[in-house]
């Protein structure tokens, strides 16, 4: 290994700038918000140090917090459950469609649209029939009138309506990632497998799946982290309403920090979110390392 005979000083000189930037815009803000989580502060005036009081209130007295955590995790579970479907679509596209690029890009289309546009679009689809809601009108026309609901304003179904929009939007995204992953598997392997008698879904089971585990992992991590920070779509479509029925962690954090002017309390929610993200990333990495080992 004499090729890389560079002095430590040079290495430091090259690494330091990006390390400093990374430190400045990732670590320092996290530390700052961990610290403000310990304050009783409205974000404007004087602050007082209250130790772990915010966290105590958050975990034991906040009636909105735990339901919003539950919704956030449901969101994550649904998003991750979507990925096998995306993978299946990608496999079908690869196998049966001669020129799949057009289809892949059409599936991808919702991803490049702004969330605000998507939100407004689905609000009008979900509207009550009397307000011209498409979904309810279709249900009425095909005789399923008993199925019509006020999709966004019934607390029992509103959150599921939101999950669906997010799944719809990101299906194409994950399909694209999986599709690219499959395309990168060398065709020689499949040819060799065919000689050994593995074709079709059998080949997928023994070749495609093990080969694309790293790609699969990327999708899972993206889906998980993405749903933990779900914010914009909820704000656009329901703003956490009706009566907190669609509140997720990040909207709760936003409302506490800025609407209720409890910046310190909001920061403690943010700290919770950061910790959850870190733990989740570690767990996901651990599981996939095991999987990769088993298949390789």
């Amino acid at each position: 290994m004499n090729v890389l005979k560079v002095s430590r000083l040079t290495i430091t000189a090259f690494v330091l700038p990006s390390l400093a930037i990374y430190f400045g815009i990732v670590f320092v803000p996290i530390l700052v918000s961990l610290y403000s989580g310990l304050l009783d502060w409205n974000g404007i005036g004087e602050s007082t140090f209250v130790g772990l009081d915010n966290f105590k209130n958050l975990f034991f007295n906040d009636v909105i917090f735990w339901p919003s955590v539950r919704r956030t995790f449901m969101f994550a579970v649904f998003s991750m459950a979507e990925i096998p479907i995306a993978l299946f679509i990608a496999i079908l596209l690869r196998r049966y469609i001669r020129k799949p690029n057009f289809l892949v890009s059409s599936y991808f289309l919702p991803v490049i649209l702004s969330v605000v546009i998507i939100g407004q679009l689905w609000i009008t689809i979900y509207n009550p029939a009397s307000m011209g809601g498409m979904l309810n009108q279709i249900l009425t026309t095909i005789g399923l009138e008993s199925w019509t609901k006020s999709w966004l304003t019934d607390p029992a179904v509103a959150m599921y309506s939101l999950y669906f929009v997010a799944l719809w939007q990101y299906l194409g995204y994950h399909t694209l990632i999986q599709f690219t992953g499959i395309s990168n598997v060398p065709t020689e392997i499949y040819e060799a497998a065919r000689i050994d008698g593995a074709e079709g879904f059998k080949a997928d089971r023994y070749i495609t799946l093990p080969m694309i585990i790293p790609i699969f992992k990327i999708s899972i991590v993206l889906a998980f982290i993405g749903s933990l920070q779900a914010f914009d779509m909820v704000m656009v479509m329901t703003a956490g309403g009706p009566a907190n029925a669609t509140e997720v962690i990040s909207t709760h954090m936003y409302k506490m920090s800025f609407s209720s002017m409890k910046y310190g309390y909001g920061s403690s929610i943010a700290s919770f979110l950061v910790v959850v993200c870190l733990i989740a990333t570690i767990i996901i990495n651990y599981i996939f390392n095991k999987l990769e080992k088993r298949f390789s």
Partner: protein
Amino acid sequence: MARKSKILSLALTASLALSLAACGNSATNNKGDTASPDSGKTTEKVEEKVVAKDVKITFQNIYPDTTDPKNQLMKKLVTQYQTEHPNIKIELDSLNTDQQKLKLKTQAASKEVPDITIVNPSAQMKPFVEAGLFAPLNDMLDQNGLKATFQEGLLDWYSFDNNTYALPDGNNIAVVYYNKELFEKAGVQVPTTFEDMLKVVGTLKEKGITPIAIGEKDSWTGSFLFMNMLLRTNGPGFLKDVIDNKKTFEDPAFKEAVDAFKSLVAAGAFQEGATSFDYNAGENLFKTGKSAMYFMGTWATGGIEASSVNGKVGVFKFPTIGGKGDPNEFMLAPGSGFAISANSEHLQETKDFLNWFMLNFPKEAFTAKGAVGIGQIVDGDFKAAGYSDMAMEVLGLFKEVKGGDLAFDNTMNPGTAQVHLNSIQNLFVQKKDSAEVGKEHQTAYEANKK
């Protein structure tokens, strides 16, 4: 993780504000030696020629809509002022209300408030005043008789310890707008009691007309209506009594108001899916003739005049509930106010500009047909100037105002207000016992009062 982007945006806004301040700084070294307004005219002229250095004033405002008369008159006044004072450059930072609120809070956290900004009255501006972010404007109000142009008592909502910190652009009341054509079609009359109103709602509904439009996704709209009901069942000053420990939210009057509100929801008064309509979408139902009534502050007058139902709309006072209340007591809505940053690099120039701006505001608003509900006294004949019949009706109601209450979030601390807003929004979608609603409020109040 979402947090990260917020911090980033905070850092960006801060650096933006810093760089702006830096620009201004390098351009002026003449702080203090600009002519004071009291000094003689001649010396002022001479001095202006000698020391007039470039001054940049940032003017954050909530008039981003170029079709809004207020946007047009603001631009007109700013251009005129810049022509008359070539050394002064006024930079507009026009945002919509919610964005402005968020941006100001972010800027306030780093003590980088723009030279002129917008705040809401009373409880909502209190944290900013307590943090010492705004300059008192008493001296400036005395200049050129500006104070006398404001309606009696209006500035009190913007004053703390005898110092006035903001100058309001409006003073509105809440009324019920109604579509005369739809009322005629259903054969109903303007209700004078709440019980009548429920009957009107029933009849309208039978005829397939949405009785009342509301934009309850923005939950303050429902709260505003609810507070008007509380004003009837209790009379003015309920929240103040709560703050003074004379009453609690478990008071019978509060429960009565909740029950009245529930009966309105149960009668199907509001459009289906009301909680997914934002303010604009709700108002549009009324403006396009799809609903018969609309409860809102009189600031909506201009927008309704510009819509397709113009000419068919009348207004009435919110009726009595169970024989209680005085219809001449209204929900009062002192408008958002212009405040000046205490740390402004050019405090004097900014004060001079705002003084001139507010002096000219009523006249320009009058000509732009935007003078219904402004906070200053307007000279001029509205009828002759071509204001609509509805505008004249609204102006007529203003003369009958005998006090009232402010909106919930202008009176209570933000933490309680947030619980209240959600609690009222909940009444739209779930049946809840009024005692429980009262208890929810009381618990939140006790947890947040300090």
